[in-house]
């Protein structure tokens, strides 16, 4: 579809009546069909280019007219448009980028329509008002939304301007910092890397995850009643490139998540400016969520894992176990709890000196109350051990508690803290963990995030915010996570 040229008369805008709104809901369902016909529409739907914004506006006008006529023509129109663009792509008339852009636009338009219809339904549910009144409210909101649409082109120009300002600001700060740093340490060469590292150390550092400190940034911004979400919080939630994790924070045998480039990170939607509630898209996996929240190699840290598990109130047992299974398995009590290591070493040494067999050692460890309590401190449950693969080889012992349903605790070096032991532990962790990172939020929690409605929707299509959606928010933001202990 071609964007409107300047010569064309302005497209007719909607002045929605309740009937229009009813039509709109049907339209949104039709668009949902389109959306489901190509899952890629869900991807990056927020990232509309400036050209896409123009096209979106034009398409939106056409759609508006179409759904003022009748439902079937609306549906036909959409499918035809999508097919036409796909055909154009196959014929080489448009690039894959252009096709992707078009999909984004369809998705964006869908979002606008869906936003209104869901808002009406939500108003009715929450406001104890009639559906007609809810529609009127939504219609008013819709008009506002349309005026927002009118700003988009202007925004594009402003965005260009903002880039100039930001570039200028960066240069100014770089110059100032270079001069200051050189005066302090003559040989130092300033680059972006240390700045990134500092932000990482200060903003992503574990201490800031503590609940008593977490809301500081949000409060700072909400006091000013800024309409946008707290920007600092968003930055805080993003991993900075080129940051190394201190060696002592790394568990050597734990699986390591691939470093993600900033440009490939999932885009998040921030809903509540005061609360810093973040939502994730359906494509996000627990891996990507926690990687974004805590940075790469996050699950090698006991503290971080505890943070992820901490809110037991909001978690059902099943959800908790899923997360625990995924993330606790990389936590090594032998290395992360000194008392555990000490107790284990002492116990095993005593048993060996007394001529105990491997099986006896395993039994003794399994039934040792001190170790159980220490493990519970870490994972919140008891554990027992079993030989890897059931072969009884003591050098490959892993601490496992009904791991297929519950959790896995890797205890390195139970008898001989050797490399093979660590590898064995890591391998088991990997093979078990491998199932989890590929699960989507929808699969794990049974909720679907509707981007345009900005809501989680459950299997019945009902809007869901708590507890499951809230759980995700809390995991992502860490804003409500108490200390595990």
């Amino acid at each position, binding site marked *: 579809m071609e964007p409107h040229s300047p010569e064309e008369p302005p497209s007719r805008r909607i002045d929605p009546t309740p009937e229009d709104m009813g039509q709109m809901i049907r339209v949104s369902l039709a668009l949902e069909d389109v959306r489901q016909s190509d899952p890629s529409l869900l991807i990056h739907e927020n990232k509309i280019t400036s050209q896409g914004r123009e096209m979106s506006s034009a398409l939106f006008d056409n759609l508006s007219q179409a759904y003022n006529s009748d439902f079937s023509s609306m549906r036909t129109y959409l499918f035809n448009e999508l097919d036409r663009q796909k055909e154009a792509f196959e014929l080489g008339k448009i690039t894959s980028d252009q096709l992707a852009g078009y999909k984004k636009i369809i998705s964006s338009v869908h979002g606008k329509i869906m936003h209104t219809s869901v808002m009406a339904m939500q108003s009715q549910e929450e406001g104890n008002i009639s559906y007609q009144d809810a529609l009127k409210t939504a219609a008013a909101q819709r008009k506002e939304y349309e005026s927002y649409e009118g700003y988009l082109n202007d925004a594009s120009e402003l965005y260009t301007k903002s880039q100039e300002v930001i570039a200028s600001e960066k240069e100014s700060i770089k110059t100032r910092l270079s001069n200051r740093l050189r005066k302090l*340490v003559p040989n130092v060469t300033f680059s972006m890397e240390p700045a990134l590292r500092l932000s990482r150390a200060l903003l992503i550092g574990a201490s800031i995850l503590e609940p008593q400190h977490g809301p500081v940034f949000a409060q700072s911004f909400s006091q000013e009643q800024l309409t946008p979400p707290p920007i600092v919080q968003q930055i805080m939630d993003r991993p900075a490139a080129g940051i190394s994790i201190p060696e002592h924070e790394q568990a050597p045998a734990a699986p390591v998540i691939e470093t993600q480039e900033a440009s490939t990170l999932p885009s998040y939607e921030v809903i509540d400016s005061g609360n810093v509630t973040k939502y994730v898209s359906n494509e996000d996996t627990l891996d990507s969520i926690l990687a974004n929240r805590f940075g790469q190699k996050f699950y090698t840290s006991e503290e971080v894992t505890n943070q992820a598990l901490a809110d037991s109130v909001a978690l059902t047992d099943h959800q908790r176990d899923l997360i625990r299974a995924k993330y606790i398995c990389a936590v090594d009590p032998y290395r992360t709890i000194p008392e555990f290591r000490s107790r284990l070493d002492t116990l095993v040494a005593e048993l060996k000196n007394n001529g105990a067999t491997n099986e006896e050692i395993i039994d003794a460890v399994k039934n040792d109350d001190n170790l159980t309590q220490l493990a519970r401190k870490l994972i919140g449950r008891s554990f027992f051990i079993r030989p890897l693969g059931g072969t009884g080889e003591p050098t490959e012992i892993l601490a496992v508690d009904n791991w297929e349903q519950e959790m896995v605790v890797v205890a390195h070096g139970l008898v001989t803290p050797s490399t093979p032991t660590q590898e064995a532990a890591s391998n088991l962790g990997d093979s078990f963990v491998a199932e989890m990172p590929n699960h989507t939020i929808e699969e794990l929690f049974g909720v679907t995030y509707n981007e345009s409605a900005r809501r989680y929707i459950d299997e019945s299509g009902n809007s869901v915010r708590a507890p499951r959606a809230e759980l995700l928010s809390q995991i992502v933001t860490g804003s409500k996570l108490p200390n595990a202990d």
Partner: protein
Amino acid sequence: MGQTLSQNRVQFIVDEIFFEQGATEDSSFLELINLKVVEIILDELENDKQKTFVELLSDESKNDLLRTFVENNLPNYKQKIATSLDDYIKEVKLKITHGTT
């Protein structure tokens, strides 16, 4: 565009569209913020602490020490960064809006 835009409208766009949807996706903006954090910390530290700060900053193997150092010498650094960044972002917004009207 600029001729017809009211200040309110510009502000609306900058706040609602750019800073909500654009800036946090923008690596350039993130770099700016990271730079600003360095400057804020440097401003807040006492003179005799600044050299150590820069040395730690320059050594990528000392991330943990860097954080500890800042925590020890600027116990309320989080609030200071938040406040200063808040002010600074407002400044940047002003420069953007001022330049377009």
